[in-house]
Every structure is written in structure tokens, then in C-alpha cells.
């Protein structure tokens, strides 16, 4: 079973749900796919070890062979190559690593080298097998790291994927192909607006989904009304609670301090696993 935890909006409690669920259920694997700002590991007492580097293949030009014909720069959709009358410039951070320039070069002047854009790290604690990806500072492209990270999913386990915020490439890459998506929201106008966007994404990807309302009580009832109208199951509500907020701020998963919540997460997982949540 692979469950993604997403939200559209940042700061709604994705990491809270993902970490606490992983700690509550058996045979769990937790993958933090928010590779721009991975935070899940802060909630565990564990040592992370590097598992692998993540590379993009970027072009290298042999100036001896290049005759500055500009075929490569005209082909490149990302403006990653500029050809001057007697020189050629590569902008590695604009390169998506498609390999097109190598293919179109008539002189065989372009080869590729691997450029590290981030790493995958892994560890384990409290029975949870953990991995996350970490995008290097200054690098724009998060998606290749998420793709590499998702290869760590063990089909024999219950994998929980903590998604990045937003509704574009990194979030889509995380949610795609998961068995179920938990959309975490908060009962505010911002939460509702971003939930609507997230719902469009999961529906587009045809992933079954349900909603968790976090900080229940702080806002109004528009999120619940929206879910009711659209027949979207609200699977759990976590009240706005100072103790939970304080534990979060110190990097402590609240199920460890409030064991009654552990049962709630097991119940939530069972509902999803049985397929009752559609």
C-alpha cells in the first residue's frame, strides 16, 4: 500500500500526518518527497546516511570538434546552450538533461557528464524505514530527485509519501501512481482554495483520495461544506491544540505523547486499506 500525503498549500500539516501515521502503523516506510525542504527526519531520532547521489546528464563540448553550427542551441528548448561565433557556452542549471544536443550534433562534439543535483539519504527509527531526497542549494529541478527517491518504495511495506506543497511538477510526481492520497487542509479560506486545486490534481491523476482537516476549530466550516457537496470523505479531524503545536515545534511526533492518537491513525489506515474511503 502506497499512501501520498499532499495538500496544495504549505504548512497545513502534511509532515505531521505523514510522520505520525508512519509511527502508528506496522511495517512502515516513510519517504519525504519534499526534497526542497525535507523536514520529516527532524521528527525522528536517527542517523541519516547517504544512499546515493542524484545526477542529471549535462552536455560537455569538445571545442576541437565543434564548428559552431548552432544546431544544438537551436534544438535546446531551455536556452541552456549559447553558441557564439567562436565559442560555445553551456548553462548547466538550465539543462533538463534531455540529451537532445548530443543527438543533433553532426560533428559528435557533444558528450555528457553527470552533474550531481542532490542526494538520497536513508535511516530508520522506531520501526520506520526512512528515506528522503535533498535538492542541492541553488539547483532548480526537484523532480529528478523525487523520481529517484520513489525507486526506494518497497512493495512489501506500507509506504507513506510526504509530498511537497503546490500543484505542479514536484507534487504531481509524488502523488502519481500512489494507491491513495490524503489531502491535508486547514479550515480557512486559504486552506479551502488550495484544497480545491489539490483535488483537481488528484482527480487528474485518478488517485483515490480523502481529506484530513488539521487545526480544526480555527476557521470556518467552508472546507467541510465543500467536501460534503463534492462527496469527498473527511477521514480525520485534528483539533487546533496547543499541546500538539508545542510538540510539533520541538520536532516531537504527537502520537508518542498522546497514544490515543496512535489508534486514530491505525483506524485511518485501515479505512484506506479496506477501500472504504472512496
Amino acid at each position, binding site marked *: 500500500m502506497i499512501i501520498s500525503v499532499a495538500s496544495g498549500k504549505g504548512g497545513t500539516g502534511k509532515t505531521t500526518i505523514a510522520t505520525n501515521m508512519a509511527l502508528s502503523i506496522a511495517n512502515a516506510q516513510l519517504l519525504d518527497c519534499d526534497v526542497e525542504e525535507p523536514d520529516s527526519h527532524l521528527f525522528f531520532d536517527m542517523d541519516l546516511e547517504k544512499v546515493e547521489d542524484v545526477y542529471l546528464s549535462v552536455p560537455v563540448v569538445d571545442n576541437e570538434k565543434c564548428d559552431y553550427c548552432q544546431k544544438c542551441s537551436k534544438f535546446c528548448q531551455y536556452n541552456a546552450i549559447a553558441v557564439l561565433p567562436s565559442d560555445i557556452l553551456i548553462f548547466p542549471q538550465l539543462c533538463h538533461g*534531455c540529451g*537532445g544536443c548530443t543527438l543533433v550534433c553532426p560533428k559528435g562534439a557533444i558528450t555528457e557528464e553527470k552533474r550531481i543535483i542532490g542526494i538520497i539519504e536513508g535511516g530508520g527509527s522506531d520501526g520506520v524505514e526512512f528515506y528522503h531526497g535533498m535538492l542541492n542549494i541553488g539547483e532548480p529541478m526537484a523532480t529528478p530527485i523525487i523520481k529517484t527517491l520513489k525507486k526506494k518504495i518497497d512493495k512489501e511495506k506500507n509506504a507513506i509519501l510526504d509530498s511537497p506543497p*503546490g500543484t505542479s511538477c514536484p507534487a504531481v510526481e509524488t502523488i502519481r501512481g500512489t494507491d491513495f492520497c490524503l489531502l491535508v487542509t486547514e479550515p480557512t479560506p486559504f486552506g479551502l482554495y488550495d484544497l480545491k486545486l489539490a483535488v483537481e490534481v488528484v482527480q487528474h491523476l485518478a488517485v483515490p483520495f480523502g481529506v484530513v482537516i488539521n487545526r480544526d476549530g480555527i476557521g470556518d466550516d467552508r472546507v467541510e461544506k465543500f467536501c460534503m457537496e463534492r462527496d469527498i470523505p473527511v477521514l480525520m479531524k485534528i483539533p487546533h491544540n496547543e499541546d500538539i503545536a508545542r510538540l510539533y515545534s520541538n520536532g516531537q511526533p504527537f502520537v508518542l505523547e498522546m497514544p490515543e492518537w496512535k489508534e486514530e491513525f491505525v483506524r485511518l489506515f485501515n479505512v484506506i486499506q479496506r477501500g472504504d474511503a472512496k
Partner: protein
Amino acid sequence: MKQLTIISGKGGTGKTTITAAFASLAENAVLADCDVDAPDLHLILKPDIKETVEFSGLKIAAIDKEKCIDCGKCTDYCRFEAIDEDFNVVNERCEGCGVCEYVCPFNAIHLVDRKSGFAYLSETRFGPMSHAVLNTAEEASGKLITLVRNNARVLANKSNKDLIIIDGPPGIGCPVISAISGVNLVLIVTEPTLSGIHDMERILGVASHFKVPAVVCINKFDINPGNTRLIEKYCAENGLDVVGRIPYDETATMAMIQEMTVVEFSENEFSNNVKKIWENINYYTGKCSENVTINGDY
């Protein structure tokens, strides 16, 4: 014309609440919402849209099924796994590179424009606003952000405004890089949680990598005084100025529900602190140079 971007690394720290408050305090500014993935600023500023521009980001491959003989060359060469086993293009994976078009022996594939979203030029009760919405599951949010920023400059020139206030996206990747490159100052909004501190350190790394000056404000500073001290210590050790602290307060949520900025909604400790931060920010933007180049287009 000067540009200020509000960022945080971590989502949900209060970027939009603070940006909206600044909008109601600024006297001569254009507002820009560069969180095109999940734009929220319009929920408070209620822009009146004057002009809509369709946005096409990267292109997308289209396969002509009449010509395709399922030879599989495109799938062999595509590095993004964007063509499935039935030879359909997986929209969200296609990066529009054109390799499939190039290798197809039967001329069955062409790159076509992909409609990725809309950019808007609007008017609000606090002045002009540039914003956009990226279609869900679309690519190229960085390019759309560059468009929003260019539109903001057009609006500023047209209406003689001397400041652009940009609500930035979360994270540290391409959208953030597009939203901060070449601006005069970034305000990093953080919160005293371990995640908040961790994310602030990473976003500061990005600001310094792109040589953009940064200042910090701590939202909800009273939810964990120990962590607030850690942030202040970290900033002091790294030569960063903390321009203000804001207490945890339900004013922000209540104002949001009323579609008001916190400054409009009430005059209390919360809004007074935001006002002080705004005054401090004006001091910093006043000091920074006018020479700005926009080079962000990822």
C-alpha cells in the same frame, strides 16, 4: 523601481498574510503573487481583473496515431518516461524537449504549444496587482513567475509606482529562484519550530547563492521562546538582521475569513508588529541600490 520578495522556505509561515498587510501599508507599490502553484493573495486583495493573458510555457509532444507504427524509438530516447506503453504522451511528464520528434522515423511526433495557465493584470483597493494561475499538474511555474514579474514591472511603469511587493512560493527550487533573482531584498518569514529553522537555513543558502540581500522576521515567536532564541542567535552569528517578531494571534485567520488584511481588520499587538516590520523594511529597501537585473528564467 525596487523589488521586495517575501519568502519562507517552509509553507504556511504567514508569507501571504504579511504581504497583504504590506499592501495596505505601502503607498506606492504594485503587488505580485508569485506563488502561482497555490496563489492565495487574491483571496484577501480581491483584484478586479483588467487584462488576461494566456500562458504557454514549455511545448508538449503530440503523437499522430495515423503515422505512428509503434516502433518504440521515442520511448527509448525519452529520458522523462513521458511516453507510455500505448504511445500516449503523459502530459505531466513531458518536458517539451523535442527528442521524440527528432528521433521519430515516421515524422509522427510534433511539438505543440501547451496551454499552461493564465496571467492577470488587475487593480485592487491598494493599487495594481500582477498574478497568475498555473493549470493544475502543469510544468514551467518558473517561467510563469517570470511573466508575473515582468507584468508587475509593466504595471509599475504605467502607474508610476516605485516598489514591487512579491508574495513568493515555498521551497527552494525553480519557482523560488525565479521569484527572488534580481530583487533588491528578500524578507524571510520563519517560525520557531525545528522545521521552520531548518527551512530558513536552506532558503538563506539560496538567497546568498543568488546574492540577494535578506532580512528575517519571526512569526508566532511566542509559541516556542527557546526556538525563537535559537533563530535570533543563528541570525546574529550569520550577520542577518531580524526586522521583527509577530506573536501568535488568531487575528490573521479572522482577518482572512473577512477577506481583509490584518491592518484593516484590527489595530492590536499583531498588526502593530507588522507595521513596525514594514517600517524596518522601508529602511532596508531605501538603502539598497536601484540597479536590478532580472535573470531568473528556469
